[in-house]
């Protein structure tokens, strides 16, 4: 089935996305960018350039480099007299009174130029997806009138795209956050502060249909203004310090703009940033460097007036919708500028609600368009409705540790199996303690069920192989099965409602696990150390029994003494002591290890040893990590 892509055809930048396996993915362009400049250029040698290359040659070819074409889409020539004066290319009146762009004596309708952008996006999407793309959902500002929408559709047609639907940008943003899935009617405010335009819209969602109640904005307010404010400040500071005016130096300005954008972005995550531009200019006395510190507070001061310009339109949009700010259920942010903490604070202050975050604000509209495209195509995921398991699942293993088999947020149905062993020699049964939760230790997690697998044939610890499998079916029912691979005995348990937890319960359990995380980690470490030390004592004792005659009596005595010390330390739960005693035992056991090694070498040249010896010890070591099963020895030892 051919894929339908979602396209955010923006004033400054465009972006596209597609649903893959029910999840939206942004499609990068051929140059690797996730957004594409909405710029078309006609070069002197007759080439047509679209995107970044078009923007890069703009200064060499201003009259033939078309940007912001969106501002002319579906407009009459006499409606755009103001816009016309801003752009360096020629805007003329077409036969029907429409605005037309004139390049080298040829008139282009704005949809034709937009189509060139769409064509590039389409070609890049085809290259990315490896299949032809014919259908698309394209977004437009909510305030676009019929003529502007028709013009956008025409652009799609010219680009060879079947535009299945024109979607309002704020609606797409709301879709990207799944706000249509909440099941109740609601009001949404979409705050879109992009590179060069500011739009605010109030939407009402009823019966799964979005209705635009009001829109407002400022056609010439965006990130570029914020950058300029920083550049002006930098150049004023530099003038104050050095007496040199950088604002007339094109090359210095270029570096200032770049540094301004970088500083602005950095201050979204830090409180202060260093702006460092060595050799920004030179005087007869030598090179000059620019070195300034910009704090978040200073940035807010510099851009305060710009930010204030969003207040009026927002209030007006609310007033036009006939709503009080308190009636807004959701706030959605669109546009890179909304990453700035001061912008987010302003929005929270105006609406009294925290905005939704999580989807990249540069891509959120394209993502929403892709979701709309998926809905129109009847995407598979809607039929299947796959769920995830909200918390991790596992079993208790030796030392009270929780060994996870299925991580939280795993999509179900799913199955996972792991092989475990016994902790004691001749252990006749194991207890499978099924746990749910995020803590490393069993005790901080929730018990879902317990069962015994009995009838394990007598064997040294670590030898029996017990396969434990978890299977969560599509209904969230957990089937845990334990099977003794030696005897074929098996035992299972069925747990219902394992994922029937409310969101509150899940978040409570996650928070609890976090609050116990440190303690759990300490206990886990202790358990690991105990297991290791205990294993070491066991192995050494076994090897000693076998190879005693090859050792000095004093060495053997020392080893025995150290084994005793380790076992005593194990009683104390003192991590440092256990580790120290284990290390001491290892050292003392070196003569023994040599004896075992010599023996194994000898054996290797002759017939294989009857059993165990070095070989068996190795195997036990291999299994040690997986070793598990209940420290309640009384229950297991016969």
């Amino acid at each position: 089935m051919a894929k339908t892509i979602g396209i955010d055809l923006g004033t400054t930048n465009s972006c596209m996305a597609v649903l893959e396996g029910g999840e939206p993915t942004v499609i990068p362009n051929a140059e690797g960018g996730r957004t594409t400049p909405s710029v078309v250029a006609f070069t002197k040698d007759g080439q047509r350039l679209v995107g970044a290359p078009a923007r890069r040659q703009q200064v060499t070819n201003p009259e033939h480099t078309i940007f912001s074409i969106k501002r002319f889409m579906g407009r009459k020539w006499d409606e755009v007299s103001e816009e016309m004066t801003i752009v360096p290319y020629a805007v003329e009146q077409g036969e029907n009174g429409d605005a037309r762009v004139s390049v080298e004596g040829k008139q282009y309708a704005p949809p034709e130029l937009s189509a060139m952008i769409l064509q590039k996006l389409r070609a890049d999407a085809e290259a990315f997806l490896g299949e032809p793309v014919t259908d698309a959902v394209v977004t437009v500002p909510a305030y676009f009138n019929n003529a502007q929408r028709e013009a956008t559709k025409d652009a799609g047609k010219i680009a060879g795209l079947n535009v299945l639907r024109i979607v309002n940008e704020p609606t797409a943003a709301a879709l990207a956050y799944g706000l249509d899935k909440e099941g109740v009617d609601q009001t949404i405010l979409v705050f879109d502060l992009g590179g060069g335009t500011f739009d605010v819209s109030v939407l009402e969602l009823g019966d799964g249909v979005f209705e635009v109640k009001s829109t407002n904005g400022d056609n010439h307010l965006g990130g570029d203004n914020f950058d300029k404010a920083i550049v002006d400040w930098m150049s004023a500071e530099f003038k104050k310090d050095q007496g040199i005016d950088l604002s007339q130096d094109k090359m210095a300005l270029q570096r200032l703009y770049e540094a301004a954008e970088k500083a602005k972005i950095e201050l979204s995550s830090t409180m202060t940033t260093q702006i460092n531009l060595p050799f920004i200019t030179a005087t007869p006395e030598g090179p000059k460097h620019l070195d300034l510190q910009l704090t978040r507070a200073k940035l807010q001061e510099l851009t305060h007036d710009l930010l204030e310009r969003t207040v009026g339109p927002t209030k007006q949009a609310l007033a036009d919708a006939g709503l009080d700010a308190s009636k807004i259920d959701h706030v959605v942010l669109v546009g890179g500028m909304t990453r700035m903490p001061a912008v987010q604070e302003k929005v929270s202050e105006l609406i009294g609600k925290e905005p939704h975050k999580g989807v990249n604000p540069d891509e959120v509209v394209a993502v929403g368009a892709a979701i709309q495209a998926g809905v129109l195509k009847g995407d598979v995921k809607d039929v299947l409705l796959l769920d995830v398991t909200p918390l991790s699942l596992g079993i208790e293993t030796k030392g009270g540790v929780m060994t996870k088999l299925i991580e939280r947020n795993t999509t179900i149905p799913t199955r996972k199996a792991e092989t475990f062993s016994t902790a004691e020699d001749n252990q006749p049964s194991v207890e499978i303690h099924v746990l749910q939760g995020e803590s490393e230790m069993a005790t901080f997690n929730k018990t879902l069920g317990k069962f015994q697998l009995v009838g394990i044939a007598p064997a040294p610890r670590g030898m029996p192989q017990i396969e434990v499998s978890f299977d969560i079916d599509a209904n969230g029912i957990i089937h845990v099965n334990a099977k003794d691979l030696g005897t074929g005995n098996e035992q299972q348990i069925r747990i219902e409602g394992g994922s029937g937890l409310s969101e509150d319960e899940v978040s409570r359990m996650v928070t609890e696990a976090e609050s116990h995380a440190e303690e759990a980690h300490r206990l886990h470490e202790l358990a690991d150390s105990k297991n290791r030390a205990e294993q070491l004592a066991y192995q050494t004792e076994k090897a000693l029994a076998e190879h005693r005659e090859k050792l000095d009596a004093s060495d053997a005595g020392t080893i025995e003494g150290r084994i005793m010390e380790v076992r005593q330390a194990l009683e104390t739960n003192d991590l440092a002591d256990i580790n120290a005693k284990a290390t001491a035992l290892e050292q003392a056991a070196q003569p023994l290890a040599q004896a075992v090694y010599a023996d194994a070498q000898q054996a290797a040249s002759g017939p294989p040893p009857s059993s165990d010896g070095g070989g068996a010890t190795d195997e036990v070591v291999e299994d040690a990590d997986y070793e598990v099963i209940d420290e309640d020895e009384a229950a297991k030892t016969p």
Partner: protein
Amino acid sequence: MTDEHPETAVDGEPSSPSTDADRSADELLARLQDAERDHEKAMDDLRRVAADFDNYRKRVAREQTQILARSGERVVAKLLPVLDDLERALDAAEHHEEVKVLEGVRMTKDALAAVLASEGVEEISADGPFDPHVHEALMTQPAEGVEPGHVAHVIQRGYRIGDAVLRPARVVVAEERGEE
């Protein structure tokens, strides 16, 4: 359907209408049950494949994040000696004559260039005609001895790794009428 047809009689034995209907109803029921079982099995398989895919995607996304985080480490480790050299240069600048320092800084720059080259970084050539695929025009100027539309000079070098442009070369382009 209630009429007796010879074909519906099993093994050609005569049978009453009701037994026959019962039998075909039983058979249909059995077939329905089979079909339902098959359907349920197929749906379960489909769900499992879809869930596997979903989990696979989550794993890949997780791995990608890790790879991304780690991929920088290798390059950064290679850059640390260059940082050391720069520190030495600064130290030298305080104690030694300018010529020596200059030489050291130049060697440091060479060392940095070598690290970048080992990562496949190449400088973008800025000779000849302006090419917006790899150059970015900062301004145009009349330039003597340079053909119009060609690069007059480079303000900031550009770099590529293979076909990917890391950063276009920032250039001044010779003006069209410059030569006239």
